[in-house]
Every structure is written in structure tokens, then in C-alpha cells.
């Protein structure tokens, strides 16, 4: 590898933004920004200077910041949403280390003051198009199903992000499919983010610090999925004092313990949840219910240790599992586990480094043990991932990011093990191996105090590796050739450059325009031809048959803040072009099928839309309205005569309203309303008889629509007790207040009461679900 110095020089030569003025003597201010009470580092806090409008820097995911500015005297402002702004007078004559601890602003009223005094242009310029950041505090008051606070459910109220429906943790970002979202927990990929087959997400909000959502303009350090990145960071734990918090809800209870380690040089956090519906089903008189089980649990663990002023290590992990069984004869369990070991190292006040070793696994097992068969079906995907990131704070105008990563994917598309007396043979599908690597380099360039440009490139490679047999197929899906590759042998390599560009131009102190272009490549494909985000998913890496999926997106946005930054308005349009999209042939069988690739079809797609968002950020009443108008279409040879047709997730209109009102010191009320056009679906155009049973025939793919989805939820939080030592609250909520029958399942079937008729039956899961949760903290 090139020595760092050379790399920096090369970067300098390559980057147009870097050749600018280096005349006046500059010095670097660097440090870490933390929460005063807990010692938690604060990502995306802003450091700016009253004397240098338009210049500023945001802290990275580890709270580290650095900025080089000309010598002089300054008023340095450190701001973070929900915290009191820190003001510091400095005389800069040498490099300085300034660590900041911000105090949490208690109560909404104080926040009004903060807003009015902050450098209000910052938000307008620093946030690239398509990016949303949510602090966990932002989601606490949004009412949710059964009172389980849920980051993934809450982000579905933001523009451009829509739910895949009740009872489905899947979500669609700007027309992308549910598997096109890169969901990271402390950098580890979480393949299946759902509990209870999708009713809840796997993320326990007590363990989470922050979530960043990228719908476009992805920074070059992210890659691997077409539509979005959800980067979720776990809490580090309080390094000042021991604490515990938790909640007792109708579905699940949770407990979190955190505290300092090694004389406050480190901290830890352990957070666990378990649902307990199953504890009650055991008492049921009905034998089916009595012998059926459904529960989940998850554990988040994290520890960190500050070795010295320039070295810090973090170890974090997640383990979760869902278990369900039906009358002891049919069982399903699935879960994710992840582990991340990270080392932060500050080479100099200008160069920050993070090295990560990451493990991620998703496994599911189905057990069938009835009178006639005993089979266990399993499938898994495992990742071993190395990542090295550098941030180089070159000068006041340029922040460079560069690094490399490499992931070894092992997927087991399916095994089935049966007892000798079973009707089934054992099946072992070949494991698939792939090495996914990337090099990236980007520059955040403050070209002027009005113009900020982030540009970069990511060079990704997917190498399909042996051992294994690789087949080619003709258009009818018959094998035409077979080759065996030895272990470690490269079968096929796909190298794709992914340019990334985002620019913001500030029109005036309260408004800006933003433009972004990015290309993303996806090499892990989820195969699922079931209508449900089923757990029995098959993950396949790109191969000699499956090409990397590619998306190119352009987005243009306008941002405006008004009423003294109390309101934020944004409006964006986007256009996305998709290549190598995957669909299935009729009757494709994905279970235990060694020739699964023969059943796939490939095509292209396009998605475009307009998103509008208005948010009231301060005062007793806060909330937002978001509206999205969009279209998503696919074009796949062999389907609908090769014409464009609407993708399932093509929801033309999507509206959400969220409101939170702090009525008194004790009571906070909230409500949210969601409306969206129903998914595009394929319904029968008529029927005929096969062996006496009505069978349906179909017209064009996805030419029908589910009924529009709509729902109103309300919630209230009562702060029961608040002292410096103990805090407790009650959260009440009603999900789907007016009992709208939103479809979960629609089946076309023979009428059970009239042999001469057929009927359409709809199943609705949630019609008005009240809940109560008790939360405590000490």
C-alpha cells in the first residue's frame, strides 16, 4: 500500500477543490464532542465560528471533529439538536485540542432559545440532498403499534420512505425494493430487520443513539445496496455513572443497564428485550393455542475503552431470535447476529482513522415434525468484513474521506435434513462464496461560503469464488454447460466505478438548493417470490448468471427555513434508472432448488418522484407533514410484452402527518396519520375449472391496485415522576384509531358457503389496537 503521505498528494492532484488558497497561516482545532451527563459522543454535532459564516464542520460518527482555519481570534459555537449551544472565545495561534461536553436542553421551551441563537444556516448547507438524520429522542413521542418504539417504523413517516404494509417491517425507499436498503447496526449489515415476521423491527430503541438515512447522495464510504442506507449507531453507555432504564409493555419488556468501566475511561451498555405473548398462550384452553408459541428476544451489547488520548476501542454486538411453532408440529426460528470490533486512532489533529472488523449472520430454520414427516430446512448468510476508513481534515475548506473495505460472503441457499422415515431426502445445496471489495475517496469541499460540494468515487468489485459448480442456462432454463471451480478460484469479477456527487448552494441565509448524483451497485440479491416478507428468504450473491444490480440517481432539492428556524421546508425531485433487476419465471420454485438461477428473469426499471416535507421544529407543538408523489416501473422481457409496468411498490401518493404537543410538564400528546395508494397487484380477469376447482387467469402484471392504505394513531405520555435519581412515565397509544380495515392478505377462493360461486376474502390484522407501556429510568 502507498504511504499515506503519497496518497494525500495524489488526492491533492486529483481534486479540483484542493488547489485553492493555502496562503495565510492556518491552524487546526480538533477534539471530541460529548454529552455532558453521560459522556456519550455526539455524531453530527456542528462546530462553527461567528467570524467565518458558512464555514464549519460536523463531528463524525465517533464525535470527532477537526477544522483548519487561519490564525486569529474567534467565537466558536458547538451546536447539537436538543442540546444547549456552547460558545467559546478562542485565540488561535497554534493547533488546539478542544473537547466539548454539551448539556442536554431540558424541556421544549429552552430549545426555542437555542434555535434562535444558533448559526441557523448550518442545517441548510451541511445536510446533503436526500439525507435525514434522526436522533433517538426524535422518535420517542411518535405513537406506534403496541407501544414498541421503533426506528424503522418511524422513518416510514418521512418523505420518500413507504411501508410495505401492516405486519411487514419491509419498506421501500424511492421506489426501491425492500431488499435494496442497506441496514447497518454499528457498521454490521442486518439482513432481516424484522421480529414477529415483520410487526416490529429488530432495533431496540433503548440501545440506539442515532440513525442516518440516505435516500440519495450517498457518501462514497457506503455501498452495496441500490436504494438507501440506514446507518444505525448503538449507544456507547454512560461513562459517568451507572444507570438502568426499561419498560414494561403489552408485547415485550426491556431492560438496559449501562455505566462506566476502568475509572471512567470506558463504558458499557447491555440492553435486552423479550416478548411474552407465549407465556399466556400456555394457559389457553384451546389446544391449538396452548401448543402454539410465538416470541422474540434480542440483546445489544457494547463496550468501549479510551486507551489514551488518541486510541479508543469499541466492541459491540447484537443477537436476536424469533421462535414460533404451531401445535408442536411446525416450527420456525430465525435471527440475526452481528459483532463489530473498532479501533479509533487519531494520527494527527488532521487525520482520523477507524478500523473495523465486522461479523454478520442471518439464519433461519424451519422444522416440520408432524405425523408423517420430520424435516429441518435451514438457510444462512454469513459475512466477514474488514473496513478501514480515514478522515483527513485538509484545511478549512476540504475534508477528505478515503478507505477500503472487503467482505467475504458465504451463503447457504438451503439444506434440508430429514429423518430416515420421512418422505423427504436430505438436500444440500452448494454454498456460494463471494468477495466484495471497495476502494473509495471523497472530498467535502466548501468551495465558497455559499457553495459546498461533496464528490468522490467508489470502485467496487465483486468476485464470485469457488469452490462450486457453475452452470450456464439457455433461455428455457435448461443447463447448457457446467464447470467446477476449486476453492478460492475466481469464477467471475465485476468491477464497477460508482461516482458520487452532491452540491449545496445557499441562496440566502434561510434557503438553499441542492443537487446530487450517485451510482450504487448491489451484489447480494434477495430472492423471495412470496407475497410476504417471508423469513424463508434465499440470499444469493452475483454470479456468472446474476449480474450486479445498478442504480443511477439524480436528485434536485430546495430547502428553506423560516420563522426564525422554527420551521423547515424541503422539496426534492429525483429520477432513478435501474439496471439488472431480477424477477421470476412463472411457477419458479425457490426452495431447495439447485438451479434457481435458471428461474430468474432480468430487466430494467425507472423510478421518479417529488417529495415535500414541512416540519415544525420548536415550540410546544412540533411535527411534520410529508407528501410524496412517485412512479416506479419495471421493464422485463417476458413480462407484459416487455413493456414498462408498475412495480409492486409503486405507491403514487403517500402522505404522512405527525404531531406532538407538550400540553403540560407532565402530559405530551401525539398523533400520526398515514395515507398511501395501494400497491400494484395482479388480480384475476376470469376463471375456469380444473378438476372441478375454480382456477383463475390473469391479464397484465400489476394492473390492479390494493385499496388505499390509511390509518390514524394517537398517543399520550404521562411523566409520572421525575427526580434527579428516578424518572418514570406511562405511554398510552391507540393504533389505527378509527379501525380502518387495511388488507394484510387477500385471497381469491371458492365460496365456502356456495359451491357455485367464488369470492374475495380480505384479512386485516390490526383494527384499533390499544396499548400501555410503563417506562422507568434511574
Amino acid at each position, binding site marked *: 500500500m502507498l504511504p499515506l503521505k503519497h496518497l494525500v498528494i495524489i488526492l491533492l492532484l486529483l481534486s479540483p477543490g484542493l488547489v485553492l488558497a493555502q496562503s495565510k497561516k492556518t491552524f487546526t482545532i480538533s477534539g471530541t464532542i460529548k454529552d455532558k451527563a453521560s459522556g456519550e459522543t455526539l455524531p453530527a454535532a456542528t462546530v462553527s465560528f461567528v467570524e467565518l459564516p458558512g464555514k464549519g464542520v460536523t463531528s463524525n460518527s465517533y464525535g470527532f471533529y477537526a477544522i483548519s482555519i487561519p490564525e486569529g481570534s474567534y467565537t466558536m459555537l458547538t451546536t447539537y439538536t436538543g442540546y444547549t449551544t456552547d460558545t467559546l472565545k478562542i485565540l488561535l495561534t497554534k493547533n488546539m485540542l478542544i473537547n466539548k461536553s454539551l448539556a442536554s436542553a431540558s424541556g421544549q421551551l429552552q430549545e426555542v432559545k437555542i434555535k434562535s441563537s444558533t448559526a441557523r444556516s448550518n442545517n441548510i448547507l451541511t445536510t446533503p440532498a436526500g439525507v435525514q438524520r434522526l436522533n433517538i429522542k426524535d422518535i420517542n413521542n411518535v405513537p406506534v403499534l403496541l407501544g414498541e418504539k421503533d426506528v424503522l417504523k418511524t422513518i416510514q413517516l418521512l418523505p420518500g420512505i413507504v411501508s410495505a404494509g401492516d405486519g411487514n417491517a419491509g419498506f421501500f425507499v424511492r421506489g426501491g425494493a425492500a431488499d435494496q436498503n442497506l441496514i447497518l447496526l454499528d457498521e454490521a449489515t442486518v439482513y432481516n430487520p424484522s421480529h414477529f415476521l415483520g410487526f416490529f423491527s429488530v432495533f431496540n430503541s433503548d440501545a440506539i443513539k442515532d440513525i442516518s438515512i440516505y435516500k440519495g447522495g450517498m457518501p462514497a464510504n457506503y455501498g452495496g445496496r441500490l436504494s438507501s442506507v440506514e446507518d444505525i449507531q448503538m449507544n456507547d453507555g454512560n461513562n459517568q455513572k451507572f444507570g438502568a432504564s426499561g419498560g414494561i409493555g403489552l408485547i415485550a419488556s426491556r431492560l438496559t443497564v449501562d455505566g462506566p468501566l476502568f475509572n471512567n475511561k470506558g463504558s458499557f451498555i447491555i440492553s435486552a428485550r423479550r416478548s411474552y405473548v407465549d407465556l399466556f398462550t400456555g394457559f389457553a384452553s384451546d389446544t391449538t393455542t396452548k401448543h402454539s408459541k410465538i416470541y422474540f428476544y434480542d440483546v445489544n451489547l457494547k463496550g468501549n475503552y479510551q486507551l489514551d488520548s488518541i486510541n479508543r476501542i469499541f466492541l459491540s454486538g447484537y443477537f436476536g431470535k424469533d421462535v414460533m411453532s*404451531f401445535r408442536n408440529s411446525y416450527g420456525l426460528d430465525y435471527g440475526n447476529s452481528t459483532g463489530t470490533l473498532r479501533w479509533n486512532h487519531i494520527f494527527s489533529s488532521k487525520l482520523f482513522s477507524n478500523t473495523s472488523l465486522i461479523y454478520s449472520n442471518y439464519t433461519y430454520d424451519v422444522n416440520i415434525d408432524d405425523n408423517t414427516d420430520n424435516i429441518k430446512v435451514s438457510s444462512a448468510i454469513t459475512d466477514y468484513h474488514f473496513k478501514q476508513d480515514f478522515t483527513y481534515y485538509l484545511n478549512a475548506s476540504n475534508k477528505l474521506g478515503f478507505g477500503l473495505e472487503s467482505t467475504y460472503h458465504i451463503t447457504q441457499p438451503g439444506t434440508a435434513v430429514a429423518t430416515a422415515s420421512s418422505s423427504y431426502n436430505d438436500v444440500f445445496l452448494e454454498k456460494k462464496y463471494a468477495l466484495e471489495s471497495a476502494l473509495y475517496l471523497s472530498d467535502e469541499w466548501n468551495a465558497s461560503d455559499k457553495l459546498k460540494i461533496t464528490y468522490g468515487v467508489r470502485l467496487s468489485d465483486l468476485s464470485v469464488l469457488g469452490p462450486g459448480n457453475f452452470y450456464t442456462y439457455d433461455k428455457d432454463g435448461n443447463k447448457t454447460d457446467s464447470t467446477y471451480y476449486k476453492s478460492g478460484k475466481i469464477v467471475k469479477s465485476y468491477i464497477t466505478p460508482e461516482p458520487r456527487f452532491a452540491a449545496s448552494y445557499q441562496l440566502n441565509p434561510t434557503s438553499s438548493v441542492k443537487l446530487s448524483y450517485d451510482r450504487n451497485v448491489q451484489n447480494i440479491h434477495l430472492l423471495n417470490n412470496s407475497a410476504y416478507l417471508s423469513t424463508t428468504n434465499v440470499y444469493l450473491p452475483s454470479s456468472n448468471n446474476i449480474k450486479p444490480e445498478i442504480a443511477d440517481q439524480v436528485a434536485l432539492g430546495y430547502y428553506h427555513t423560516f420563522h426564525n428556524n422554527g420551521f423547515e421546508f424541503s422539496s426534492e425531485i429525483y429520477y432513478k434508472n435501474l439496471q439488472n433487476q431480477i424477477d421470476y419465471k412463472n411457477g419458479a420454485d425457490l426452495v431447495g432448488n439447485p438451479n434457481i438461477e435458471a428461474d430468474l428473469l432480468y430487466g430494467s426499471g425507472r423510478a421518479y418522484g417529488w417529495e415535500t416535507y414541512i416540519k415544525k421544529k420548536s415550540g410546544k407543538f412540533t411535527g411534520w407533514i410529508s407528501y410524496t408523489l412517485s412512479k416506479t416501473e419495471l421493464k422485463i422481457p417476458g413480462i407484459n410484452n416487455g413493456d414498462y409496468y408498475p412495480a409492486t411498490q409503486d405507491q403514487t401518493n403517500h402522505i404522512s402527518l405527525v404531531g406532538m404537543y407538550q400540553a403540560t410538564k407532565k402530559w405530551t400528546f401525539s398523533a400520526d396519520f398515514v395515507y398511501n395508494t395501494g400497491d400494484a397487484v395482479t388480480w384475476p380477469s376470469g376463471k375456469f375449472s380444473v378438476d372441478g*376447482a375454480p382456477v383463475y387467469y390473469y391479464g397484465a402484471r400489476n394492473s390492479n391496485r390494493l385499496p388505499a392504505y390509511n390509518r390514524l394513531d394517537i398517543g399520550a405520555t404521562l411523566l409520572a415522576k421525575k427526580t434527579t435519581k428516578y424518572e418514570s412515565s406511562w405511554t398510552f397509544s391507540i393504533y389505527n384509531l378509527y379501525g380502518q380495515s387495511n388488507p394484510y392478505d387477500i385471497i381469491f377462493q371458492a365460496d365456502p358457503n356456495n359451491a357455485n360461486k367464488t369470492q374475495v376474502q380480505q384479512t386485516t390484522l390490526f383494527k384499533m389496537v390499544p396499548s400501555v407501556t410503563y417506562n422507568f429510568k434511574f
Partner: protein
Amino acid sequence: MRIQTPIIILVLLILFSSSCQKVITPQLSNGAPQLVIEGAVSDTTGPYHINISKTVSFYADNTYPNVSGASVTITDQTVGVNDLLTETSTGVYTTHSIVGTPGHTYQLQVVLNGKNYTAVSTMPLPVALDSITFDYTSVKNMIQPVVHYQDPAAFVNYYKYNITVNGVKLNRFQTDEDRLMNGKYINEDLVTDTGAIKKNNLVLVNLDGIDKGAYNFLQEAENIAFYNDQLATPATPTSNISGGCLGYFSAQTVSSKSAVVK
């Protein structure tokens, strides 16, 4: 393993009591009526029948208008025997002389309004059903027949099951293939509707050995008929008859067993 998802829904319905089911009547597009040809030659004694009808719209009665006036021929291509079928009632065409023999290949030819529809099907070697028993417990309120037979290891086999209760054939069928169970002794629960089989009923199960073309159609038709809610992209089952029609033609072996539900 197709029955997984309904069971999951059932579990969810039990646990989330706020859920409910109702009949809805969404507007559906009405396709132009299409031609449906259905028929089989089997290793049981003839005559055999080919039925020609038209599709109807989803909300119409399950009465499918029969189509008369077709010229229907079945040829035993293995021995070169032709049989021109006679329309014995409207839309029902009956054979005269042709005999179903395992291993023989049969061709169906239908000429209607100047259009040709053809299909070829090869009768597999027979597989005998040993016995049937009943499973009273796997699914609540449902008595399920269980079939027992040996799948031959030397061949790729495709099956279809039908159930007759007290002499009345149930409007249901089920398919199977030996892809994951080649050469095994098969014990399999057949899916029935709740209450379709009661105590003291005389239950007859047919095990039909079918070929790949007929299986492909029937397997897709089974998913469409009974599990269409689970398919992300439901589509018209692919007929093994060429020329642009629905339905299937099958040369099949038949083995049946009956038992009384205790």
C-alpha cells in the same frame, strides 16, 4: 411445504385477536372469454373424455359454457392408432377405441373454428397406492387423508391426488413431484377444506401418475386456485396444449384406495 404460510397466518390470527376477515368485492377487469381444453387418457378402462369450454368472469357462477363443434382426435403415437372423438353432449368429446397404456405417448389434436390446438403427453409407468389412513390432529377441525406409497427411485415422477367422499368428488386437487423425495416411501397428508371429511365417511383417494407437462400446468393451477394470496406475482398457469388456450391434456396412470373414517 406449501402449507407454511397459511399456518403462520393462523398463528397470527390467534395471537392478534384484533384481526378479522371479511368478504370484499373489488372491481376486476373482465378478460375476453378464453378457450379451455381439459382431458386425459388413463390406464383404466375407457372411454376417455375431452371437455371444451369457455372461461367466465370472476363474479359469475361457476358454470362454464361448453363449446361444441370441435374436431377432436387422440393419437397413440407409440403404436400409431388414431381415434376421432364423438361429441356425446355439448362440449364433451368421447373416445371410441383408444386404450391407455403406460409408456405410450398420446397426441391430442383439436380443430375449432379453423384453429389448431395440440398437446403431447406420455403416460408414465404406474405407481401403486398402498393404503390410505387419516390424520385427525395436524390441523384443527380437519380430517386429512394420508397417502402411503413407494416412489420409484429409477424415474422422475409427478403426481396428482384427488379425493372422493361418499361417491362425490371433492372440487380440489393436489400435486406432488419427487424432486426432494426420489425413491422414498411417501407418507403425505392431503389438504382438505374444513369439514369436507367427517366420521364414518367412505373416502376414496386417487393417485395419478402424470408427466412433466401436465404437472407444470397442474402445479401452477394448484397454487393459483388455493394459494394465490401467497404469490408475489400470480400468473395464468402455463398450459401444455399449444395454440393459445387454457387447460391441459394428460396421459396418466391411476391407482386408488379407499377407507372409512373411524
